[in-house]
């Protein structure tokens, strides 16, 4: 899932300075699972902002709402409050939600309350770690399910660098070396031959180097068209 982290309150307050009537909009998807942007966090953030405002002078008011997903048009029907009635929306969805809401409400500024960080898994209570980079050309078949693009600090594809030590990465001692993990896992699977194989330089065009990416499912497009023609 997409993991995101709340921006510092000061930064948010600064961002909201030009506005008086603000809607804090939560998202019930990924960011609510990583406890950054769900309904509870939207309510709490609105409260914090109102408290801060009441200390700094009158005029400001924050309300809150939350929908199932901010990255899908259909869920906006469930909005209890109309974003158009506010001076600004503070979205605490990931960047996708912020961007998509901005498109849906072109007259209303939609501002980000979170920093969107990575695609990760919940590895321990209160901890999320990066597992995937969304590189567009998955290599997990030959790396024992451990992603070197996301989890090796240098995104190496041919094996460990010289910085690995005691299974840790040269970047930080609390960071596992991805290539050490890959080596151990492939050994366990009896597949060290995969480590030995030469990997050709990657085509980063599938990543971001080819410009923004798009996914289209033709069959879904056709189906939608048929339905709308009926």
């Amino acid at each position, binding site marked *: 899932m997409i993991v995101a982290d709340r921006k510092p309150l000061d930064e948010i307050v600064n961002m909201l300075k030009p506005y008086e009537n603000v809607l804090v909009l939560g998202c019930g998807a990924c960011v609510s699972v990583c406890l950054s942007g769900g309904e509870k966090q939207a309510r709490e953030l609105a409260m914090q902002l109102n408290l801060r405002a009441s200390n700094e002078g009158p005029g400001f008011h924050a309300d809150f709402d939350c929908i199932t997903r901010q990255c899908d048009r259909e869920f906006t029907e469930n909005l209890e409050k109309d974003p158009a009635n506010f001076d600004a929306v503070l979205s605490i969805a990931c960047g996708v939600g912020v961007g998509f809401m901005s498109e849906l409400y072109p007259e209303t500024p939609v501002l980000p309350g979170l920093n969107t960080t990575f695609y990760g898994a919940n590895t321990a209570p209160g901890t999320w770690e990066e597992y995937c980079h969304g590189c567009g050309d998955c290599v997990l078949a030959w790396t024992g399910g451990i992603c070197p693009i996301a989890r090796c600090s*240098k995104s190496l594809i041919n*094996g*460990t660098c010289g910085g*690995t*030590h005691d*299974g840790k990465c040269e970047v930080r001692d609390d960071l596992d070396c991805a290539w050490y993990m890959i*080596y151990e896992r492939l050994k366990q699977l009896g597949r060290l031959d995969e480590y030995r194989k*030469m990997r*050709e330089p990657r085509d980063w065009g599938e990543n971001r180097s080819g410009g923004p990416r798009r996914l289209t499912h033709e069959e879904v497009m056709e189906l939608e068209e048929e339905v709308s023609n009926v």
Partner: protein
Amino acid sequence: MSEPVSNFQKATEKGDFVITAEIGPPKGTNIRPVIDEAEEYLKNGKVSAVNVTDIQTAVMRSSSMVGCKLLIDSGIEPVLQMVTRDRNRLALMSDLLSAYILGVRNVLALTGDHITMGDHPGAKAVYDLDSVGLLQAIGRLEDGTDMGVDFKGRPNKLDGKPEFFKGCCVTPCADCPEPQVIKLAKKVEAGAQFCQTQAVYDASAFENFISMVGDIDIPILAGIVVLKSAGMAKYMNGNVPGVQVPDSIVKTLSDAPKEDRQKKTVEITAKLIRDLKPLCSGVHLMTLGWDHLVPDIIEEAGL
């Protein structure tokens, strides 16, 4: 076998015990002292080539290429170090062509220390290629093409192609050597013709590594970072992965009175060279500015 492209390659092919040294370009424009020192202490017929580091430890400084060019002008054969951290394949290949034009014939392909270890931790890391990919890129250039294709899908042709003596690095005394050895084999498959290792201080650990290397048949030069003090040795033990300075060496350094330190450094390095000599094709001396000790080290080691 094709003709050697450099004196360094020639020396390794002759089976000489080869010595290479290393200089680091300065942070700033004042490069003359580094070159003058190299000329004074490293140009003595025993040192086959001098590496010029490429933004070493991710600390911003002037380039390896300019250091190489000035060494050539001074009659010293350089080894262009190249890391994949800071440049994508376009910039790397362009620099390889440029270096060849300037007369550089030896290249050492490295991944490079991570940006977080240097003095610009907010910079964007590149790593378009890894060290294996860089060796593959050099191979393509030598074949007269680059890594791209024209509109018909054919490799782009070069107008004039380079030829290099291509090297790689390995960490021989890593706590888990097998993945290092496998990667070294891949580097050789990708075209590496020589190897200069990460620092070695323990001949028996190095022997263990050499026994694992088996049929990887390229000259391996054991790397030695010249130890300036006990503090430096301890720092390396705590902070440089795969480097273990034995306690006996640390003790020799810490027991030495200040005025004897450099003498001790020479003795320690020379002894290490003598111990490593039967196990490898040469040594790569990383002096970190103490080039002036190199002639004494060579003499004391009996080379």
